[in-house]
């Protein structure tokens, strides 16, 4: 479980980030070289396309805290994203899970019993996500001429497709470690625990696309349907593949019924 970041532990989070920064920047470079050979430019598209190559399951789960997971079973690792959460969280969670999928030593089968500092491990995943998502958010923030702090933060959310707190953490880090910007630091601490509860309306008021702060409710079973179909084609006499396929369709229908309930 990730540590919940609040205004009280924000400074500690920045201290932890300092410890892991070099390591994480090395991984973000490694990721770009190894996994973005097609030169995909949208960070949100890139993370999902990489996860889809690894059988990403997208499923709406009616829980405000559960963002996603890498489920390991036997020798396989399956990424899962909760599409009942606003898209902006999904994008962040996607990068978080990519860290675990490719770089988390604790999830490598031969080593997953080694003792790791779980809090630090989760911080690493969050920091990796932040470094994949953000460019120079500090400069962008100051390039905006809005007088209202929250409006500026929302515009940063829109441009970087990043959650409210992730924007504030990134800004806080720059303000503290690079620019000694005490005014911004104070503003962030003042607003950190009070995320606006009407983000959709605020996006609309600022003439931004509010879809970003709404759930997508996408249902995708990671290509499993096609896989079973091809196995059935190759082995037409094996009845349990057909049975499994029917069962999968039943599950998919159940999920879709669940979506209808959630989307109302």
């Amino acid at each position, binding site marked *: 479980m990730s540590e919940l970041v609040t205004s009280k532990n924000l400074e500690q989070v920045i201290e932890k980030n300092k410890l892991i920064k070099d390591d994480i920047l090395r991984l973000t470079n490694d990721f770009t070289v190894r996994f973005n050979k097609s030169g995909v430019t949208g960070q949100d598209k890139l993370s999902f396309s990489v996860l889809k190559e690894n059988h990403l399951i997208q499923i709406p789960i009616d829980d405000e805290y*559960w963002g996603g997971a*890498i489920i390991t079973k036997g020798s396989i690792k399956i990424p899962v994203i909760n599409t009942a959460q606003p898209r902006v969280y999904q994008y962040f969670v996607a990068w978080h899970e990519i860290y675990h999928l490719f770089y988390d030593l604790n999830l490598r089968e031969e080593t997953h019993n080694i003792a790791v500092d779980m809090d630090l491990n989760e911080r690493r995943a969050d920091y990796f996500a932040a470094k994949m998502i953000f460019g120079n958010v500090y400069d962008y923030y100051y390039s905006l001429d809005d007088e209202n702090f929250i409006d500026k933060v929302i515009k940063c959310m829109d441009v970087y497709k990043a959650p409210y707190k992730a924007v504030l953490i990134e800004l806080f880090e720059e303000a503290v470690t690079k620019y000694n910007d005490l005014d911004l630091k104070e503003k962030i601490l003042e607003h950190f625990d009070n995320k606006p509860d009407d983000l959709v309306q605020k996006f609309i008021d600022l003439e931004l696309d509010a879809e970003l702060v709404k759930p997508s409710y996408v249902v995708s079973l990671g290509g*499993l349907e096609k896989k079973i179909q091809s196995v059935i084609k190759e082995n037409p006499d094996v009845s349990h593949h057909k049975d499994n396929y029917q069962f999968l369709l039943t599950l998919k229908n159940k999920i879709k019924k669940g979506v209808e309930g959630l989307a109302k």
Partner: protein
Amino acid sequence: MSMELLFENRKLIGKNILNIIKDNGYTKSSFSRLTNISRPTLDKLIKGEVDSLATFKTHIQKILESQDMNEEQLLNYVPKYKTKKELVFALSDNAPENHALNPKAQEMFGILEDIVHMCELYYN
């Protein structure tokens, strides 16, 4: 070998049934349809929690017939499937300690578990 002996060892029989399911590429649900045993009863069989000998006999007989096995083979079943340490990571979860999942979310996690089990069957 008597059915009573299997009944006495019903916990072990339950484990063996689960291994048969995994070894042959079934899900619990598809196996339940194949053997005509309801899913809740199959779960009880797997957990070794069927307390009535008559019920146990009826259902074990269905499994033996579907797998073309006898009692001895079921009792001494050696799994082909090598159980690996399973690990579930719910990593992006900031829930407070006292947070409880609502029934809809619980149901969806149940569905997710079934899907992941199928992934294991078809992606390995």
